[in-house]
């Protein structure tokens, strides 16, 4: 579904991606792990066209993303941002229905609102949340609204950027379960970035570890613990000592 071939990206002297090769199969949930500042978010942004890679080819369903109509490409995606990225000036329902209200296939306002309320219910929020503004919600509720927005247009591919960062363990568990349920229910292809190993185990079909600008290890979640890769073992067990420098 998504393939990345030899992706390079540098910011000045800082070479963040140094030849990333990765395949995300259709309908699978791929989780990308790796230390802070290793370029995981940049990788997602390259796929979405928010950041242009210096070299390499990214294809989605066989089409090179740089030669595809941007709007058509983006209409296939939903994304949950790390901080929610909800629009402060719009009420919750309007945030969720944002895409539904725009474009050639725009729904009437009442219909879009009904879909938004249904999606809010799907992520465990009551209809009375719909008319609140994002600033009136807790962090966990904002994440859920972000999730509702990501799935509102029923995309084929969903990206989750650190979905549990800043949440307590119970709320993290709720979000992890929701992500898993939704991905399975919709049959969507998912790509998640996280540091949270509980999330990895709850969400992933496949895992890829990004380190030093390349995919250091990739494989099914079931193979992760048994892998002899010292980088992967250090990361998943959170050891201070190992090949990954603790101070970067």
């Amino acid at each position, binding site marked *: 579904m998504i393939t990345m071939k030899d992706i390079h990206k540098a910011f000045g002297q800082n070479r963040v991606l140094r030849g990333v090769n990765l395949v995300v199969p259709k309908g699978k949930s791929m989780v990308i792990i790796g230390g802070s500042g290793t370029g995981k978010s940049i990788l997602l*942004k390259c796929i*979405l*066209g*928010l950041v242009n890679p210096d070299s390499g080819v990214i294809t989605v369903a066989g089409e090179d993303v740089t030669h595809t109509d*941007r*709007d058509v490409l*983006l*209409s296939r*995606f*939903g*994304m949950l*941002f*790390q*901080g929610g*990225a*909800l*629009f*402060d000036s719009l009420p919750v329902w309007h945030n969720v229905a*944002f*895409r539904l209200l*725009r*474009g050639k296939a725009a729904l009437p306002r009442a219909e879009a609102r009904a879909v938004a309320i249904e999606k809010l219910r799907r992520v465990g929020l009551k209809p009375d949340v719909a008319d609140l503004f994002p600033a009136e919600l807790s962090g966990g509720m904002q994440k859920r609204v972000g999730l509702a*927005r990501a799935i509102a247009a029923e995309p084929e591919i969903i990206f989750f950027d650190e979905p549990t960062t800043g949440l307590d363990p119970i709320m993290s568990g709720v979000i992890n379960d929701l992500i898993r349920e939704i991905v399975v229910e919709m049959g969507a292809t998912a790509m998640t970035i996280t540091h949270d190993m509980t999330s990895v185990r709850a969400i992933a079909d496949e895992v890829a570890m990004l380190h030093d600008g390349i995919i250091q290890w990739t494989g099914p979640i079931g193979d992760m613990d048994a892998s002899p890769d010292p980088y992967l073992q250090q990361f998943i067990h959170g050891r201070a000592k190992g090949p990954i420098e603790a101070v970067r």
Partner: protein
Amino acid sequence: MTTVLAPVAHLGRMTLAMLASLGRVALFAMLTISHLFRPPFYLKEFAQALMTIGYFSLPVVGMTALFTGGALALQIYAGGARFNAESVVPSIVAIGMTRELGPVLGGLMVAARVASSIAAEIGTMKVTEQIDALVTLSTHPMKYLTVPRVLAATLAVPVLVGVGDIIGIMGGYLVGITRLDFNSATFLRNTIEFLEAWDVGSGLVKGAVFGFVVALMGCYYGMNSERGAQGVGRATKSAVVAASVMILATNYILTELFFTS
């Protein structure tokens, strides 16, 4: 030798950086203008921007004009008294307000109020990834955020200038009849007789240009805001400074164009 040339090299770097920045602003302006004529158009966002930039700026522009008109009348009366020309107060207040002070002070007040708020709002949207979210939701940030604000400011500021002109002349009139012993009818007659349509028209054209500049600077610095509170703060400050300087510079250019031929 290197030490001696260091200040020159620094000056050269600063000049190049300034020219590069001017180039980026010019490109941003051209991109904004090109998007003005291409759908989709966000009418609700435009109406909201019109309210925020136009209607809500009215009190501050009105107060500025009122006090400026009053002070102008006092100054012209005091200056004119040196060569027995106190009678020019109404006509100079009217011409001064409509040609210069109305548009320039109105523009500067809008720059302080609007450029800062636009830069802070869009800058915050950038650092909290709301602009990236807009892109992923197939919405062009330029069309959704910049075009409605720039268009609203370009249309609203001339109206504000027009209202400011009237209030400013009113300020001069109030001071004239209460403090300077002018006859009310004479003051009004002198104001109307000496004022030409182009005096008002040129000020309104200036207002439109200043409105465009103010919103453009707010959007440009907001869109290019760096990370964190400091980045947004810097973008806000730069937007106000750049908008103010550009208002004064374009005011000089427009005055040359309008009144020296």
